[in-house]
């Protein structure tokens, strides 16, 4: 019975991995990077590389600076306060059609900053992580959700398949031939990081309850048109007020903030938002910061805009709190350097897990498929190379484009940020095409590309901003220095891996000329070194 069950899990594990591995890698890679979205944002928007504010921002002074920008009829505006890691303040407002406009400002000198001309990490890599930028009918979110479910299935079926789980708990034999060493590393990262990846996949699914389970509220709230809104208001808290049409005034925001901090026992807000601004029914909302706890609290305080009196206080109920604990575990929005570093290492470990899974699949089937004339290896190898090294390559191309495009770059209908995004997608498409055409040789060539682009990105940061690594390290600009160091580390690891592949292949073999079948040994050596180098990335971080 046990063997049958175990055997039945194997095709499930293989097919889920092969079909969704590339999506999983994309989610893991972007998820790992956006742990440091604030830092990447600063790297990509040099005008936001400000010194940390010595005193808290005065909201009243900030309001005098930004509120003249708000057009009549705006439905809300919002100020995100600077934090220890992001020294810039963000102002945004929304129009009735849902369109949102954002301006950054310097919270020390109360000056508007020029438009950054980029989506940075928070505007591009973050949505890529949860929606793959496929907005139509929420396709991307469903695909990511499917990958999240697949991750849970893969982790559990992987444990079931693994015949010598306990005996090989700490076994890694890097000197053995490829399928073996890749499988060792796959088992090692899969089993030892299982709690982390299970937790992250599960919490990722819980965050999008309203997408993946859109009818969840019907049982309690009924199916009437207002039911969903009632559910959202009770679950997440929302007190938007209703426009009266009478003009309203705005009391002191700083006084409201002090009151909020008093009611929260000294805890700070992280943003302030005005609902129905300029109207007599206007409400000011404060949201409590996530910095000091795992749970992403939903604590909200609403003030009457004109009088500054508290009109509503919201805290999440028990079920929503459970959902917000899971969200907190997933988003890692708290301020905890050690945990953030461990999450980063765990995320890279997840990338290794997917990569070694692909490598094992490819190397254990390469010869057999060639013998039987099957095309699966070529197809999966394209998916693996394009989806993994290709994605890393296009992420770097995105950074390079960010530093290369002039500030006023743009085409008709295309602003600068759109050109950056286009660079990303163009590079990714070319990487897939290259992987299809060059087959096994594509591993080495794309790794060399990664090494080159990482170095170029770092040098371009120096050239365009005048801030090189030694300087940012000495000045304590950790965000910029950290991104530069990560670029160096990724580039170095990729270069090392590419060199090892070259050495393993010897002088006589040319991967590009041989067919998939005769290329077996060369590919084996190459891919083994890739997995080794990737393991290095995972632990080095």
């Amino acid at each position, binding site marked *: 019975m046990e063997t049958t069950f175990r055997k039945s899990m194997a095709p499930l594990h293989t097919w889920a991995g092969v079909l969704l591995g590339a999506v999983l890698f994309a989610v893991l890679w972007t998820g790992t990077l956006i742990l440091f979205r604030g830092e990447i944002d600063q790297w990509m928007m040099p005008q936001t590389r400000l010194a940390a504010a010595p005193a808290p921002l005065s909201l009243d002074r900030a309001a005098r600076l930004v509120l003249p920008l708000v057009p009549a009829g705006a439905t809300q505006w919002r100020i995100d306060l600077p934090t220890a890691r992001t020294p810039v303040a963000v102002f945004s407002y929304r129009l009735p059609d849902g369109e949102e406009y954002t301006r950054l400002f310097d919270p020390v000198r109360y000056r508007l900053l020029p438009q950054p001309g980029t989506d940075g990490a928070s505007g591009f890599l973050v949505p890529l992580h949860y929606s793959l930028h496929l907005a139509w009918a929420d396709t991307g979110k469903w695909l990511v959700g499917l990958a999240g479910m697949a991750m849970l299935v893969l982790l559990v079926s992987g444990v079931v398949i693994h015949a010598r789980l306990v005996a090989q708990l*700490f*076994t*890694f034999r*890097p000197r053995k031939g490829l399928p073996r060493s890749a499988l060792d590393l796959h088992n090692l990262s899969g089993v*030892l*990081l299982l*709690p982390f990846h299970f937790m992250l996949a599960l919490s990722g699914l819980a965050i999008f309850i309203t997408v993946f389970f859109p009818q969840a509220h019907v049982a309690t709230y009924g199916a009437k048109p207002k039911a969903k809104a009632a559910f959202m208001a009770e679950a997440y808290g929302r007190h938007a007020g209703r426009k009266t049409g009478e003009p309203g005034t705005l009391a002191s925001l700083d006084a409201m903030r002090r009151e909020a901090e008093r009611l929260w026992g000294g805890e700070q807000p992280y943003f302030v938002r005005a609902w129905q601004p300029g109207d007599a029914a206007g409400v000011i909302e404060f949201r409590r910061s996530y910095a000091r706890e*795992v749970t992403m609290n939903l604590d909200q305080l609403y003030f009457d805009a004109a009088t500054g009196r508290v009109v509503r206080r919201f805290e999440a109920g028990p079920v929503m709190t459970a959902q917000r604990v899971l969200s907190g575990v997933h988003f890692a929005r708290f301020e905890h350097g050690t945990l953030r570093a*461990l999450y980063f290492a765990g995320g890279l470990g997840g990338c290794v897990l997917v990569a070694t899974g692909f490598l094992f699949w490819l190397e254990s089937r390469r010869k057999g498929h060639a013998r039987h004339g099957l095309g699966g290896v070529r197809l999966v190898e394209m998916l693996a190379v394009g989806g993994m090294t290709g994605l890393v390559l296009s992420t770097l191309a995105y950074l390079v484009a960010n530093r290369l495009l002039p500030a006023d770059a743009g085409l008709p209908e295309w602003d600068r940020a759109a050109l950056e995004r286009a660079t990303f997608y163009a590079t990714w498409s070319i990487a897939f095409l290259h992987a299809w055409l060059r087959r096994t040789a594509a591993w080495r060539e794309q790794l060399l590309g990664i090494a080159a682009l990482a170095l170029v990105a770092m040098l371009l940061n120096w050239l365009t901003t005048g801030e090189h690594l030694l300087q940012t390290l000495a000045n304590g600009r950790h965000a910029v220095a950290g991104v530069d160091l990560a670029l160096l580390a990724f580039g170095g690891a990729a270069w090392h891996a590419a060199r090892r592949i070259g050495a393993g292949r010897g002088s006589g073999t040319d991967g590009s000329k041989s067919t998939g079948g005769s290329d077996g040994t060369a590919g084996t050596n190459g891919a083994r070194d890739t997995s080794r180098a990737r393991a290095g990335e995972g632990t080095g971080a």
Partner: protein
Amino acid sequence: MPELLATLAAFAMCALGCAVLALSQREHWHATGKLPPYPGPRALRRLRTAASLLLAGALAPCVAAHGAGFGTLLWALLVSAGGISVAFVLAWRPRWLAPLAILAATLFA
């Protein structure tokens, strides 16, 4: 600073716990060198109990210094980090675990 010390202590306990757990397997015990003989079943049980206590005990400094929420998360991740460190030491520098094997052999024989 106390937080950092607690983190380091917890990581040391996790790595040590995983190392003892790994040494309780014949293959890894022999990989450390040929010094003491592989322990018998009773000593093995004691070794594994000690390892489990170390791993579970690492939760204490985490929670004490970082609070229940952060502490539990940190502990879960440090256990993984300890396990992977031990696997890499066994892969590339297995002899580093020889002193631990000798210590384990003397303590639990």
